[in-house]
């Protein structure tokens, strides 16, 4: 099993962090993984993408041109990455702020109003976690438990109070996706 995923949005939406959570969780599950940002000179606000490969075997190329799954957080990223999703692939996208979903008929579209869900939960910062919950539900490439363990390992102790909120967000996203 090899799964190649692109996470994309604008800088500051936490795209790199969500992607890192996926890679870290995969590592904790004993899988091979590679996290690769498409970095730009601008440190904030630019379009920001990050690929994560997860596999049972050694990962050959970490640089990808086509993806199995896209997790898309803003419209420019939709425009950029929709054509790069493999036929039969999956696009999980933030449907509160992105008005136009994927136009292709050969990919599965999963709109998640992650922004609204995050607002309901009291913090827009967990929007990414809502989408990650949906990603887990649809791909089963990692589990919510390993994301939580990853958070415990990667967040500094003073931030551990945020883990319950992140867990709620993950589960909300998972739940929402299970109905699609």
């Amino acid at each position, binding site marked *: 099993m090899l799964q190649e995923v692109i996470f994309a949005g604008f800088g500051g939406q936490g795209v790199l962090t969500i992607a*890192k959570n996926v*890679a*870290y969780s995969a*590592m904790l599950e004993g899988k*091979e*993984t*590679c*996290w*690769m*940002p498409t*970095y*730009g*000179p601008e440190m904030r606000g630019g379009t920001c993408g990050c690929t994560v490969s997860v596999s049972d075997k050694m*990962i*050959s*190329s*970490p*640089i990808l*041109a086509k993806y199995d799954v896209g997790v898309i957080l803003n419209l420019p990223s939709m425009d950029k990455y929709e054509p790069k999703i493999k036929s039969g692939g999956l696009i999980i996208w933030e449907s509160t702020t992105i008005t136009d979903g994927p136009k292709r008929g050969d990919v599965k579209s999963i709109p998640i109003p992650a922004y609204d869900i995050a607002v309901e939960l009291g913090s827009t910062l967990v929007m990414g976690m809502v989408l990650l919950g949906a990603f887990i539900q649809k791909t089963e490439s990692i589990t919510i438990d390993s994301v939580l363990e990853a958070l415990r390992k990667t967040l500094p102790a003073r931030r551990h109070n945020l883990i319950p909120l992140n867990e709620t967000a993950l589960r909300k996203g998972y739940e929402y996706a299970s109905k699609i």
Partner: protein
Amino acid sequence: MGEIHLMKGNEALAEASIRAGLDAYFGYPITPQSEILEYFSRELPKKGIAFVQAESEVASINMVYGAAGCGKRVMTSTSSPGFSLMMEGVSYIACAELPCVLVNVQRGGPGLGTIQPSQGDYFQAVKGGGHGDYHMIVLAPNSVQEMADMPSIGFELAEKYRIPVLILADGALGQMMEKVEFKEYPKKNIEQNWATVGKPEKRDANVITSLFIESEVMEQVNIKLQKKYEQITEEVEDCELYHADDAEVFIVAYGISSRLAKKAVDLSREKGVRAGLIRPKILWPFPTKVIQKYATQAKGFISLEMSAGQMIEDVKLSLDGSVKSKHYGRMGGMIPAPEDILKEIESML
């Protein structure tokens, strides 16, 4: 087995260098290697290890010269334009026979170029780069794990042969995160009686220099260097082989390209095409004997590089006309697609 970490290549290289007994680091910020500088700036002062953010790459490499001349384990890191600036210093270091480890996390060029990964600095790395007849040993990692393994290997080689060792990475290897395990790295145990440490009464003064104004002497210095390079060529070689045993088309690729190449080899094998990969983990000296060994069974060689074709020259020199060969690659930070590589493989049959 040690603890497994998920780290960027740049950070893994920095952490492993500390574990390998680094005594000093001098550097200057440039994308995509600044994490190395930042990591050291955070960790080295805590450990009492020398760290200076220099005023330029020119200054960094000369700080390396000074500290390496004292027999210490010294490192600098930069990316392509910065490495060009260091060339003068590297030439001095090579002639003065100072051991040190240099890191070039390549970006696209020429000029200021792009910050995306590239392999356009191969010639500069393996042919010398600066003025005069000299070489560096050039190590080419292709994973975050190797980014961590190579500083120690580099220091060992540098001290054994009194030669600068270059770790030639690229932006992708520097920026990507993978699993990495830190190992027990050997510490320096070679006596360096040539180093400037302060002259005791009973020995002659040690002098670190690359100036030999009399031609007769300068030629002898060159002969000595060339003998050393011959010895290294005999003794140092490291290649990874992938599906080589029965391959009829070989990709030769190093660094990040070799990961793309592996994928292309897998794709070919799925289609029944017998492709294989020869990956030099050490670019200088070039693994000529390995290429020659597999030339006898091969229909063709492809040098896959993210450049206009540089390593292809060494592949051709190794093959010496015995088998056809060609270059394939993209430039400027563009990445060759495995599907396109596959087409190139098929074209060699």
